[in-house]
């Protein structure tokens, strides 16, 4: 019994780390830049493919490819915001209109990125194996090395990012912009730059998540949507726009998934949606929200 519980918890944690990382990026994009990025999964897919290419073609260690993948996707996100969402923000009459329009623009982006990925890498399934062996810490418990690594890296990235937001000058600007864009502008924060930075950082997190995802799962151009959906569920679970909430929400969703799949695997996804919808109705600010 105890062993079963332990298994459920460990499995949940291992997958929860990736969920958390995926969701933190989306949470940042929505929380500050107010873009509900339907194409979030596409950035994850790009991260996965870049990692795959650098490992399979150039032989670069997947963990090191974080250094290639991160900046590339950050720049992509940053430029996209300046070229696209900034304009939509200016032409939209209300914040509600901006949220709607930018979401639909993201839908267009999703199409574009998928098609470009198919043109570059082909439509087929890709994958590689890295650190695919068990690690034992004694006592008979065995953990997969790559998933442990991904959990560790995900947690480290989230912590670093959290520190960045709470300690650095730029982070403070971002937080100010998130709370009150107008006042932030008054005290000299270049709001467009901050929003673009946020979108870029969100994309960066997605890219890094893509690297980690590719260490555990297959990579294909159409994989994005399922991760986007998970990210949205987690973000609702943790409270829209709350970075810490999204992190905890990701871990929580991992645990829920692990528990349900232990009892009735056919209902794993249904349980996700059910929890998500009930939560939206009962407590839209999320489990950890005020």
């Amino acid at each position, binding site marked *: 019994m105890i062993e079963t519980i332990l298994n459920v918890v460990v499995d949940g944690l291992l997958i929860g780390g990736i969920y958390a990382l995926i969701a933190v990026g989306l949470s940042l994009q929505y929380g500050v830049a107010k873009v509900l990025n339907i194409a979030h999964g596409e950035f994850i897919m790009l991260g996965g493919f870049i990692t795959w290419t650098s490992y399979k073609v150039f032989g670069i260690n997947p963990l090191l490819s974080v250094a290639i993948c991160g900046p590339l996707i950050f720049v992509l996100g940053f430029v996209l915001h300046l070229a696209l969402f900034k304009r939509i923000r200016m032409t939209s009459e209300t914040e509600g209109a901006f949220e709607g329009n930018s979401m639909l623009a993201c839908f267009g982006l999703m199409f574009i990125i998928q098609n470009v990925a198919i043109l570059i890498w082909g439509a*087929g*399934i*890709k994958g590689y*194996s890295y650190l695919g*062996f*068990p690690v034992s810490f004694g006592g008979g418990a065995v953990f997969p090395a790559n998933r442990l690594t991904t959990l560790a890296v995900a947690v480290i990235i989230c912590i670093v990012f959290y520190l960045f937001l709470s300690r650095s000058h730029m982070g403070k600007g971002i937080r100010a912009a998130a709370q009150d864009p107008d006042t932030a502008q008054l005290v000299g924060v270049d709001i467009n730059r901050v929003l673009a930075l946020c979108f870029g950082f969100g994309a960066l997190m997605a890219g890094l998540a893509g690297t980690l995802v590719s260490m555990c799962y297959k990579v294909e*151009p159409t994989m994005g949507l399922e991760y986007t959906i998970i990210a949205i569920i987690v973000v609702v679970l943790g409270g829209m726009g709350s970075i810490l909430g999204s992190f905890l929400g990701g871990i929580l969703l991992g645990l829920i998934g692990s528990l349900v799949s232990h009892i009735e*695997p*056919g209902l794993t996804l249904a349980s996700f949606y059910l929890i998500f919808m009930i939560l939206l109705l009962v407590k839209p600010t999320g489990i950890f929200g005020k």
Partner: protein
Amino acid sequence: MFGKKFFFGLIFFMIAVLFVSSPCLAKDKIVIGQPFSLSGPLASGAASSSGPFYKLWVKQVNADGGIYVEEYGKKLPVELIRYDDKSDVGTMTKLLEKLILEDEVDFIFPPWSTAMLYAAAPICNKHGYILIGGAGGAVKLKDLDLPYFFQVLNDAETQMPELAEIFADIGVKSAAVVYRGDLHGIEYSEFSIPEFKEKGIEVKMQQSYSPGIKDMSSLMKKAKSKNVDAFVVHDYPGATMLGTSQAMELGINFKALHFNVGPCFTFYPNTFGSEVVEGVIGCGAWNGKSTPGAQDLIDRFNKNMDQKMPDYWGGLFYYSSLQHFRQAIEEAGTLDQEKIRDVMASKTYKTDLGDFWYNEDRIFTNHPGQIGQWQNGVFEVIDTGEKRTAEPIYPKPKWPGKKKK
């Protein structure tokens, strides 16, 4: 209020109507239409399996000068028109009918996946177009009795008895069967479980799960705790990749490990390395040793396409069915669907997989193999009987563990 807006609507509508007028084609080539999943969730599967074989066939036929059709007294080159169905059945049916009714193509090639085949077969049949089944098992389609539909690929009905046979043969005593909760998974589990029981293999665990599963470890741990010999998964490549990597990561080894779709594709050993997948069993199956023509097909494919042979389940089936089709057209001497259909239904031709014919239900049965196992980088056929290309390995070797840098 209706005014201006309405008028613009009217104008746009008329422009739309004008554009749809069809081009008229002179008979200097055979046009074949295919609605295919070039985008959307099915695109990756379609590109990894049957997709390239139709292109290879067209390429080879045209290199040959075309198909000789007596009616026209000359060789007609072949043109393949592909439309993107977006992985959506509604779009596929619409495009299929566009190809048939609007473009009036000479022949139809099948869309990808079982569900698409189900939707396409009745439509083709209604219009009297031959549909040679490609990727997709369609046990259920038999009940519909569609005279223009030809089933090519083997499916659960023939594969699962063979798997049970092999398991009994090599000494598997018990099994766990887990499957995706959809048509595919249910069909395979319904065929496999009774067969296992009949052969005296105890099914200690059976469980369905939702598509898009992200963690299979609990299922595997449960099976391991029941101490089963064989772990059998009925799912698509996504779950196959997931199951393989998780079993390897956790060091959980079963004496026999079977995934049904996935191991047959070459991206499978390419992903994990051939030493890792040694001993994994999957549906299929064929390889270069299966028939004299098989190795030749692999060589031709690798030479002519910008990728290596991707598919050791259907590849040989698809290509051979097209070779059979071509010979049937040449024998019929016409492009008339009904006449060609009659020839196809009755004649046997030599193809890369040897003799190719359809039985009275228009089902191809001379399969090169049902079940394969990776051995030394080759997907060996391990069926009992003469199709076998290598002895099965049992028990499956341990996962190689930590790779040396």
